[in-house]
């Protein structure tokens, strides 16, 4: 797991993760990308986090995923700081013998990262800055696990 300000190369990370597997049949990745606002105008998505707790929360989420599914490996990289539109915010990767486990674990990790890891997003535009509100659906998504 890595929590970092610097950009990272999603393709290189995904390729390295897949190549490192020697008994997995299935690798799933998720990548979150900074989307511009409808109509444009987003200067940056600023991501604040809680150093220390972030790492603990992600480690706990990954351990929970490993205990629930037949998972061989997982990876979480999450950035903080000011990210321009188009930048990769974060990625998750899972490796499992079978695809159902790899998919379920990746979705689970994402649902938990969204609502249980201490990150907060703020949209910076020419008009000012606005904190992104948590979405009801993201909280609801947790209930299925």
């Amino acid at each position, binding site marked *: 797991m890595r929590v970092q300000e610097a950009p990272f190369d999603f393709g290189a990370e995904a390729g390295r993760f897949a190549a490192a597997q020697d008994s997995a049949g299935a690798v799933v990745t998720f990548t*979150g990308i900074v989307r511009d606002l409808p109509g444009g105008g987003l200067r940056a998505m600023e*991501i*604040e*986090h*809680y150093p*220390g*707790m972030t790492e*603990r*929360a992600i480690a706990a989420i990954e351990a929970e995923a490993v205990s629930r599914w037949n998972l061989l490996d997982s990876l979480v990289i*999450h950035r903080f700081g000011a990210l321009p539109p188009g930048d990769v*915010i*974060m990625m998750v990767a899972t490796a499992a013998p079978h695809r159902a486990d790899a998919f379920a674990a990746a979705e689970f990790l*994402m649902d938990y*990262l*969204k*609502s*249980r*890891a*201490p*990150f*907060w*997003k*703020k949209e910076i535009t020419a008009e000012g800055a606005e*904190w*992104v*509100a*948590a979405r009801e659906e*993201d*909280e609801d998504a947790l209930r299925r696990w």
Partner: protein
Amino acid sequence: MIEVLYFAWVRERIGIPRETVETGAKTVAGLVDELRAREERYAAAFADTSALRVALDQELADFDASLKGVREVAFFPPMTGG
């Protein structure tokens, strides 16, 4: 003596990222009451605790949780990671 941390709009509203607080409060809710009573900016930040989350020593907790043995309390809005 307890370290109190604020994140996102809670931090902005209170104006500082962290402070050391001398408190006799037994629970998070008690600490919130003390902070609210201090100044308007605290009252504003803690006006609606249903819009807030709290972590005790970096683990999510409830507002009625005990502060016994706790060194670090953090207040923040619901997370928006991923």
